[in-house]
């Protein structure tokens, strides 16, 4: 290809991503150091030029505020905890599903895989909304249980942490199944046969051969569930109620309700730092997949 051609093929997506993916983060970083003010835009400038004097106002107050007000620390901790346990649940449910699909013959396999993915092609919001009607106090489960006389009083399920776990596992399960399946399906059968021929019982073959060889799929699946879950807004908002504290919801409220852009920016920066390690982890795996 001509030099110019090569350059422009690289340049167009590169510039787009720099402009609309990287630069925005730098701006968030910048605004996290400014102060809130009642104006348009609602934050102060970091650098001002007045009377031939250049002033740089770096306001570290927002970060001090995040540390001092324990709301934020609690929100970060509970987000990580909820995302972590939801990821473990999704893995425990998703792995056997992926395994069973990979064991099926080719035609069944594709049909099953399509059935796993189909819900995620419909609206995320609507699938979460479906659970509201099921979990409510006068919802399907409570009405059913009262109807058969197991309970007299409805069990509070909506607006609890349990509902948030359920929502995350439900919404993100396909993203756990898909990478594990992709990995398991490539597994060389002769390795399993060799292990069986050498007298290894099936459960041991699974633990010592299948599981370690599907590590890459497990990591990808876990990252695809964990990282977005930490910052999840829709699920805690709709299923978690006022009691569930999650950082995505805090950020949303700082921005839309309090209109405090610097605090929202600082919340985003700290969240990003927290997710840097898992994102790098995911990136390494993806880069190998994309470039190999």
């Amino acid at each position, binding site marked *: 290809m001509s030099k110019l051609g090569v350059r422009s093929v690289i340049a*167009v997506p590169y510039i787009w991503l720099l402009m609309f993916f990287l630069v925005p983060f730098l701006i968030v970083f910048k605004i996290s150091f400014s102060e809130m003010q009642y104006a348009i835009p609602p934050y102060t400038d970091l650098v001002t030029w007045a009377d031939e004097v250049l002033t740089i106002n770096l306001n570290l107050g927002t970060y001090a505020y995040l540390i001092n007000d324990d709301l934020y620390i609690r929100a970060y901790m509970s987000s990580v905890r909820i995302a972590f346990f939801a990821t473990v649940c999704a893995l425990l449910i998703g792995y056997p599903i992926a395994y069973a699909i990979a064991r099926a013959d080719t035609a069944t396999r594709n049909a099953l895989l399509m059935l796993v993915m189909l819900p995620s092609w419909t609206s995320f919001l609507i699938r979460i909304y479906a659970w509201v009607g099921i979990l409510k106090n006068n919802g399907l489960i409570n009405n059913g249980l009262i109807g058969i006389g197991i309970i007299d009083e409805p069990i509070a399920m909506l607006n609890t942490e349990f509902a948030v776990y359920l929502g995350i596992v439900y919404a993100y399960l396909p993203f756990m199944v898909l990478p594990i399946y992709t990995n398991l399906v490539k597994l060389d059968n002769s390795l399993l046969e060799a292990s069986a021929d050498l007298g290894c019982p099936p459960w041991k073959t699974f633990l010592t051969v299948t599981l370690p060889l599907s590590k890459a799929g497990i990591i990808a699946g876990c990252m695809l569930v964990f990282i977005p879950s*930490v910052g999840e807004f829709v699920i805690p908002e709709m299923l978690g109620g006022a009691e569930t504290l999650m950082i995505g919801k805090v950020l949303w409220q700082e*921005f839309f309700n309090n209109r405090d852009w610097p605090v929202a920016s600082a919340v985003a920066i700290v969240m990003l730092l927290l997710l840097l390690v898992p994102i790098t982890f995911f990136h390494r795996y993806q880069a190998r997949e994309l470039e190999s």
Partner: protein
Amino acid sequence: MQTGKLSNWSKWFLSLGFFFLYAPIIILVIFSFNKSELVTVWAGFSFRWYGELFRDPQMLGAAWISLKIAVLAASAAVVLGTMASIVMVRMGAFKGKTAFTSMITAPLVMPEVITGLSLLLLFVAMGQTLGWPGQRGMLTIWIAHVTFCTAFVAVVVSSRLQELDESIEEAAQDLGAPPWKVFFLVTLPIIAPALMSGWLLAFTLSLDDLVIASFVSGPGATTLPMQVFSSVRMGISPQINALATIIIGLASIAVLVAWWIARREGIRAVKISES
């Protein structure tokens, strides 16, 4: 991996898994035909909520805006995503390639609140310094959607590009075709199905996005998820069940058609290789 008949154990697990995935959706669909205002008490069959849905100008307006944005965003994302895949798969190392792949993979997992906030702040800063975009609305939502959809398209297309036999492209090149001609006459037709599924993926992602659109939208540009979200916040409404049923129906038809085409292609490929 050993394939064949599913063990009883696998069948049990799959059935439970599919029950979990589909039960809420099926309940949603059933109650969309409920006569009663109460979403959870059955009071007889009726199309009442579909009628109300189609008479709701706000819902229809929002759906129209969402569809326009989704078509335009998916189309742009396919172009950018395909270029990005070629850069990643077909071009050797160059300065800044690691940064490039990071920017492609990071949006896949980036929490939406961060992406939304950062893009909004960019648009505000640009509006202040450059005077563009003066107002936020469909254009800013489109830019935001193109950006994250590009990443998903790039993943789909590059996995297809990797499987592609490079010798076919080399043959065309040896016969004197210039690179752009090789791409449009050889590569593109082969990867066309991947472009199609990339487009569909981007289209549904754009149609489905609530969080990012809420941040970067402005007055007059309310997308369908934003409209649904605000009406759900007011309380549960059977009209949303009707809308959900329509979306689920359309998505199922699209996926089934795609699956059927893929299967037919697969069968044809087997037949060709056997003959």
